[in-house]
């Protein structure tokens, strides 16, 4: 992609401090429309805080975040709902509502569509995220971990947001289920053209679905395509990507790619 492409989201000079401890020190980040950007980093490097900052849930100590050129804190609620979707780590599905009701809640709040149509839209979201229609009347506690993630995906997509933020989408899942989620991320990105920002330390996700990766090290980020980051001289990034787990993920990513292209 050329530099002339206008970023859909741009963050400038983000500083986040907790007490004396600075987590981010002047982070600049551009997210291009239609890309899948992975944010990686060690435990405690402030990945989730960065995600909350980018999605406007956390106000940084300094710096600003703009979505489509508007500062994120000045976007009104309806507009924000149409622009941003967030998939929380534990799903954050409302436990007192069924899955379909979870999806219909934001639709009901922001539109005046009749109930039957809301239901049709909810069923469509279930289909898009690969859930059987029967799971629509189930409650979150009745679902398995992978299904909770898919249901949370369906809810995050309820209003067709332009940017989807995913917080550790494959954490706590077995490798097969995690692979399914990776595939779903790629599918949604390709078919709906949604821009996706993923916070993860799952190397397979980084290698298979992310177009670019931002690595959080030393309170700042290094952004690039993953094959370029592989050649980075930074010791932590080298260790992270070239360690035994990194190599395993790379192999599985290559074989997955061969598989999907039928080579």
């Amino acid at each position: 992609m050329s530099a002339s492409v206008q970023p859909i989201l741009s963050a400038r000079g983000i500083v986040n401090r907790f007490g004396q401890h600075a987590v981010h020190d002047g982070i600049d980040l551009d997210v291009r429309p239609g890309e899948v950007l992975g944010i990686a980093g060690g435990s405690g490097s402030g990945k989730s805080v960065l995600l909350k900052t980018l999605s406007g849930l956390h106000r940084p100590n300094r710096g600003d975040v703009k979505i489509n050129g508007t500062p994120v804190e000045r976007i009104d609620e309806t507009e924000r709902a149409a622009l941003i979707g967030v998939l929380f780590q534990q799903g954050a599905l409302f436990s007192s509502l069924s899955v379909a009701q979870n999806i219909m809640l934001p639709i009901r709040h922001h539109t005046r569509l009749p109930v039957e149509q809301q239901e049709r839209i909810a069923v469509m979201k279930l289909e898009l995220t690969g859930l059987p229609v029967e799971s629509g009347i189930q409650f979150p506690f009745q679902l398995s971990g992978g299904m909770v993630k898919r249901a949370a995906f369906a809810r995050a997509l309820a209003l067709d947001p332009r940017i989807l933020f995913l917080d550790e989408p494959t954490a706590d899942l077995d490798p097969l289920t995690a692979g399914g989620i990776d595939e779903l991320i790629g599918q949604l990105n390709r078919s709906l053209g949604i821009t996706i920002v993923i916070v993860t330390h799952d190397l397979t996700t980084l290698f298979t679905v992310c177009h670019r990766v931002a690595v959080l090290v030393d309170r700042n980020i290094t952004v690039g395509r993953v094959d370029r980051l592989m050649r980075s001289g930074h010791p932590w990034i080298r260790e992270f990507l070239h360690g035994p787990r990194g190599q395993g993920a790379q192999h599985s990513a290559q074989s997955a790619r061969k598989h999907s292209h039928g080579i």
Partner: protein
Amino acid sequence: MSSALAERRSPAIDIRADGQNLALSGALDIRTLPDVERALAQRPNQRKSQSIDLANLSALDTPGALFLCGLRKQGVELTGVRGEHKALLELICSLELKTLPKLPRVPRWREVIIAIGRGGEEALKDTIDIVTFIGRTASATLQELIRPRSLKLASISRQVAETGINALPIIGLMAVMISVVIAYQGVAQLRPYGAEDLTINLVAVSVLREMGVLITAIMVAGRSGSAFTAEIGVMKARDEIDALKVMGMDPMPMLVVPRLIGLVITLPLLTFFADVMGLLGGSITTQWLLHVSPMQSLDRVHEAVDTSDLLVGLIKAPVFAFFIAIIGCMHGLRVRGSAESVGRETTRAVVKAIFLVIVLDALFSILFEEVGL
């Protein structure tokens, strides 16, 4: 970019008709969808065999595509579909949408009966649970008391500080307040009979026999009973109880017994403190309302009560403490898995403990009446 932004800010759709053919321009998304549907519904007779031109459609989202797919299935032709919308339309049209299954509806009267049945079953289970838990706790406590060396003195003293010393201010204040209430009511009710002097007796007797211990027990049930459930419940939810078990440590003597012994020690002491504060508050209020001197008031209290009144109140305290601790710990150990469960069990524990305290108090009243105390 700025024009695209303005478009999203105020999504608009324009429908133009040219005979049997319609043309949509603007954004067809979840917000403009109701307008389009209304506009199309107003042209029912022309709906058959028409075409819709989408060449000027600037934005299309999944509900919009779903709507267009529905029209296409009814035989409406979609023309001039833009390249960027083609993939989305194909994807959505290829989905086989079933209808959401309906939850089986249960008639209201059956729901009531089911609720009563469930309640009864739960009450039975609860009773069995409490009785079993009392047995287990009693056996664990006795085993500890037989071998005093195994008693966890440090944790007992921590419980005494936590449930007793920290509760002193609030319980003192409550006792004073309740005696003020009784004094005011007494004066108001007894004055027509010219017997308002008896208010001093009323306050002294009711505080010593009933109010002191009852207020203290209810306060402790709310304060410490809930804390027991929450502390043990969080440990249960985080597998800490299982960690104890797997390392060969029984949670009963580790967690339940110190709390039980601690509360059984504290509640009588707190009750005595509440009695003193209640008498003090009552005495000050009656002095003020009846214009008697402190010495007269004290004389009157001395006449009105004897040791048995004090003991009747105090003897109930350890029994209440025993049940408050048992209920709190039992509900803590009942927590399953999640954080909501901790909240639910805590509420249940407090309600049940206060309920039991009041029921036991009624039983004690009958008992003392029978034995003539």
